[in-house]
Structure formats: structure tokens, C-alpha cells
């Protein structure tokens, strides 16, 4: 097991390295570039060349990359030269990323909590009203664009009914202490219960909107997996052994059915982060969505690099966790 984890970690580091090279090369190849963005109309060829030299952009790409890598490994991703001018790029990340992560985790938990039991139930009542209804519902879940669903939810539950806040991460009147920038977590750590509760309420609507696609996909995968597994010989063996329904369900059906579900969760992380960017926009949720958009406009390389690399890092870490979970559930992949 340990060897398995170490090997997967090495693979992850390698993947991250390759990604950083590609990202670096791709960003530098975008038309325009930081120099024209910074100088704007006033730029002359001379001043552009001077600026380029000052920023180290006159060096060959491999040299530039090497410098970037050295600094990045020390936690220095440079200073923002976009809207957050003067701020270290890493700070832009640490302030904004937790919002996106908090939202994504909440949406994922929401999706899993409902999709897995419902998928199981639908499979057990295959062909019944509940099953058919759930399939239609999940189809709608995949088909409706996330931002549209976000608008509808916001309109009904925030604007019309006023049950939940329409935007932001926390009410401004709450004077909350922020330690980790995960607001719910902060509230719990500092025992400011009202702050935690308020942050949680702000998560509900965007969370539901964001969970719609993973919910639908996990629901369908669970249903299909349970249907397959129920026909397996070992489930028949379990029944022949006279085990309790509960044991058959948990140990013999779900443990096997969850294998494809776990795989799908890993693959969903990318879609989840992308969906978060859209959802954040609707709910004015200050995550990385806005930072990314502005970063692209202004060719804010340091900010873009840190955001994308960190997103990739998180993607890889989550998938590593998924792989380990996978290996825990399925002994056949451990070797």
C-alpha cells in the first residue's frame, strides 16, 4: 500500500512538472503579452525593450522557466501586474481560492449525500416510478446549464422568497474573524457560530447549483453500478449464506458498486472547478473565477500561473486521494 502511494505521488509530481512547462509556454505564446498590456498606447519599441529586460522577458524561454521554477519552489510566484498590482500573486490565491474550494466541497458533499442513496434505491426499483422519475430528474440536472440554474435558484429562493442571501460569502454586518479564509471553518474554529451559520447560508444556493451536474452523473453511475453488481454471483452467494439484508447491501453490493463511483468523483473535480467559476459570477461569490477572468484580460502572468498551477495541484491531490481510496476499496489494484 505504501509503495502504491509513493509511486502515485511520484507520478503526481511528474504530472505537475509537465503541466507547469506547458502552462508556462502557453501563457508566453498568447498574443499581446504583458508588455503591451502594461505600456498600453504609450509604448515605444525602446521602452518596451527596456521593460522586457527588466522583467526578464528577453531571456530564452528555458531560462525564464528555470527562474520561475526556482522561485515557485520557494513560494514566490511573483508580484501581480494586473488588478491586484503590487500584491504577491500567492496572496491573491490564498485569499480567493478557499472560497472556491469551500463551495466545491460543499457541492460535492451535497451531490454524494443524495446521489448515492438515490442511485441505490433507483437500482433496486428498476423500471418503477421512482426509478424513471429520478432518471428524468438527473437528465434535467445534466442538461440545464449551471449558470442558468444558478439564476433560477437565486431568483426564486433569494429574490422572491427571501429565504437565503442572494450574493456574497458572508453578511457584511457580521464582523467575523478570518483565519483560513474558509468562512464556515473559520466560524467553527473561532466559535463565532452566527458567522459560521451565515457563511453556510451563503453556500446553499450556489452549492445546489454547482452540485447539479456531479449529482446527476454520480446518481447515474451509482444506479448502473448497483444494477450490475446485484446480478453478480457473489451477491447470490451472500444471499445463499443467509446474511442480513443490511450486510448484503453494504458489504457486498455497495462496496463493489462504489468502485466506479469513486473513479468518477476524481474526474468530476475539474468540471466542478470550472462550474464554480460560473456559479461564483451569479452569486458574486469572491472566489477565483473573477481573478482568473481579470488575469487573462491583463496578462497577469504571476496571478494566472499561481491560480492554474494550484488548481492543477488540487486536482492532482484529489485524484491521488481518490486513487488511494480506490485501492482501499479494491484490493486488486494495489499491486
Amino acid at each position, binding site marked *: 500500500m505504501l509503495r502504491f502511494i509513493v509511486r502515485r505521488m511520484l507520478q503526481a509530481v511528474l504530472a505537475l512538472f509537465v503541466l507547469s512547462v506547458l502552462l508556462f509556454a502557453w501563457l508566453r505564446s498568447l498574443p499581446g503579452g504583458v508588455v503591451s498590456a502594461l505600456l498600453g498606447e504609450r509604448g515605444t519599441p525602446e521602452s518596451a525593450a527596456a521593460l522586457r529586460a527588466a522583467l526578464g522577458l528577453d531571456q530564452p524561454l528555458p531560462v525564464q522557466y528555470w527562474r520561475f521554477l526556482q522561485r515557485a519552489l520557494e513560494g514566490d510566484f511573483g508580484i501581480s501586474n494586473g488588478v491586484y498590482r503590487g500584491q504577491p500573486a500567492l496572496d491573491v490565491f490564498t485569499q480567493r481560492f478557499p472560497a472556491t474550494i469551500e463551495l466545491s466541497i460543499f457541492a460535492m458533499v451535497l451531490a454524494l449525500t443524495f446521489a448515492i442513496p438515490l442511485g441505490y434505491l433507483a437500482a433496486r426499483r428498476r423500471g418503477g416510478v421512482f426509478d424513471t422519475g429520478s432518471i428524468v430528474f438527473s437528465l434535467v440536472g445534466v442538461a440545464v446549464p449551471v449558470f442558468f440554474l444558478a439564476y433560477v435558484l437565486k431568483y426564486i429562493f433569494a429574490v422572491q422568497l427571501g429565504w437565503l442571501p442572494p450574493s456574497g460569502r458572508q453578511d457584511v454586518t457580521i464582523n467575523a474573524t478570518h483565519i483560513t479564509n474558509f468562512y464556515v471553518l473559520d466560524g467553527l474554529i473561532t466559535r463565532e457560530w452566527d458567522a459560521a451559520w451565515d457563511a453556510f447560508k451563503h453556500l446553499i444556493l450556489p452549492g445546489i447549483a454547482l452540485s447539479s451536474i456531479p449529482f446527476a452523473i454520480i446518481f447515474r453511475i451509482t444506479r448502473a453500478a448497483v444494477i450490475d453488481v446485484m446480478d*453478480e454471483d457473489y451477491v447470490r452467494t451472500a444471499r445463499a449464506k443467509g446474511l442480513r439484508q443490511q450486510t448484503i447491501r453494504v458489504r457486498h453490493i455497495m462496496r*463493489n458498486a462504489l468502485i466506479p463511483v469513486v473513479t468518477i468523483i476524481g474526474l468530476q473535480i475539474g468540471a466542478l472547478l470550472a462550474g464554480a467559476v460560473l456559479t461564483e459570477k451569479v452569486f458574486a461569490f469572491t472566489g477565483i473565477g473573477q481573478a482568473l477572468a481579470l488575469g487573462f484580460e491583463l496578462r497577469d502572468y504571476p496571478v494566472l500561473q499561481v491560480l492554474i498551477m494550484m488548481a492543477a495541484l488540487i486536482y492532482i491531490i484529489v485524484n491521488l486521494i481518490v486513487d488511494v481510496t480506490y485501492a482501499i476499496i479494491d484490493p486488486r489494484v494495489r499491486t
Partner: protein
Amino acid sequence: MTRTATTSTTTGSGSGEPLLSVRDLSVTFGRGRRAFAAVDQVSFDVRPGQTVGLVGESGCGKSVTSLAIMGLLPARGNTVTGEVMFDGQDLLRLSQEQLRERRGSELAMIFQDPLSSLNPVVPLGVQVAEVLQAHKGMKSGPASRKATELLNKVGIPDPTRRLKEYPHQLSGGMRQRALIAMALACEPRLLIADEPTTALDVTIQAQILALLRELVTESGTALIMITHDLGVVAGLCDQVNVLYGGKVVERAERHDLFSRPRHPYTGGLLASIPRLTEERGRRLNPVPGSVADNIPWEGGCAFAPRCASEVEACRSTTPELEPDRDGLGPDRLLRCHHPLEENPLDDIRTHQPEDTEGGPA
């Protein structure tokens, strides 16, 4: 594992009242016009300590019969009629919960493919111990100690280590031994073995059969042995039911069946057993045709298209299962208009087992 059985109380032929009494068991898949009887009015008895064989080609309804007895057929899409009396109760009329309590403790089953019959993601020890936990109310500690004992008993070396392993880490023979351990964990009174050796290679087959024979004799467990291989029957069964197209076509004590097969289908099956005198892997006299040539039992004999002894009545009148008119041996039943008069293979004795233990005199 190498103890010899005390044969005084557990004679192989079984004795006393039947433990299991199957009466007119029919299983129909589908409805209306598309209805299809996979098992058609099958009746047989199994006494304590007796080994009864259900023999026939693929598709003749052997597995469906055993699944119906165990209550393991799919919940929908089939109709089961008849009676399965076990210890004075009709298993077909028990509630799911009552049936569950008996499965694994009083009735147990071993399946054909040991790999797919084991849960790939649960350690072997848990899969053995869970039977004990479900029926004996054992906690996990004592249950896994008992599991070690059981694995030892079925001849799995180093059981403590094996308990922590997963099915894919075991050999085929070992997996089947593990399944046998699970089936015998609660000392069931009836064990159904559905082609337990088909997926294994020949030497392992022999070992598994020897193990089953030993355990069954030792504990006095009644055994229903399902197979398409009369060679297996020869080594294990006291009484044999030959099935064709969902119906019993011949029933006889093992010895009688081998020395005087009466039904042409039985004769064909006997002739198709590979013999030592023959080139390996070659079958001399397989039954011509296949189950695909079946015709329905209505208004004739389903075997007629493949039968060499066919007479006129075979295409017009359904033969009934009746005591053999020629009175060959006790309890012989036969469903045929024109039974074999002579053993088609008088050299059949060359591969008959030593008739010294376990069989009827």
C-alpha cells in the same frame, strides 16, 4: 482432514424419512405465449446422509431447480409452483426472513465458478466469518477463530494468513475450498453443490470431489450433487436423477444406472464419458445433436429428435415417469416408450469406481 468416517450412523445411502422432499416443482420464465418451463414437474427426495445427483446437459434446468429450492431465483420474471418440503415445512411458502434464517445454516449451496462467487473486495476471513456471525450470533473474534479452523478443515494451508487475503490471491482450487468452508460453516443439514468442479482443472477436480465426499460422510450432511458429468456421479452419488428438458427422465441407484441404463439419453451420456482406453480429450459417443434440438414435451418426447430408439408413440404421446416395467432394481423410474434393453457399452465397468464404500450394495 484425513480422518475416516464412522460409517455406522452415516451410511452413504441415507436412511429414514426424507429430509428434503421436492414435489412437482415447476419453474416457468416469462408469461403467456412466451412462457417457458425451465423445470417441469420435478420430484425427488433426499434423505439425511444421502447424496443425490441431478445430471443432464447444459440448459436442462439443474441450476434453476437448485435455485428454486434455495429461494434464490430472481424476484421477478418467474413462477414457481409445487412443494419443497424441508424438515416438515414448505420452503416455497416461507417468508423471506424465515428463508434467510435457514439459508447458510440449515441449507447451504456451493456454486460453479469459485472466482465470481466470491466477493473480490472483501477479505476471505470476513466472507467465512460473516456466516457464523449471521447465524450463530458470534462476535467477530470468535467467528474468525472458527473461520481459521474451517479453512484448515477444508485443506487450505496457512489459514491465518489466507484469511487476510482476497479471492484474487488464491488459486482456483483454494477458492472452491473456501466456498466449501463457508457452506459448511454452520453444519447445514443439506448441501447443494451446483457443478462445483466444472471451472477447475482435472487434478483439482478430483481433490475437491474427494474433499466433498469426506466432509459429507463425516458430518452426515445430505448432498444434492449437480453435474453434467457422469464421472462425478460415479464417484459420489447414491441415487441419480437424469434430467432432460426440465423433466426427470430416469431415476436409479448409482450402481443400477451404470450397469443398466434404460433411457436412451442416459445411455448416450454414459457412452460419452471419456475413458482411459481412449485418446485424451476425445469423446467417443456423444449424444448426437444438442439441447437446441429440443421439442416441447407436449404431445411427444422432447428427446425424440436426437433419439436412436425412437418409435411411433414418441411423436404422439408424452411419456410419463413411471416405475420401470422390467423391475430392474428398486425405486427405478423411467420416462420412455422404448427403453434400452442392453447396456450400450458393456465395457462401461472399466471406468466405474470401486464400489466398496458409500454405495448401495
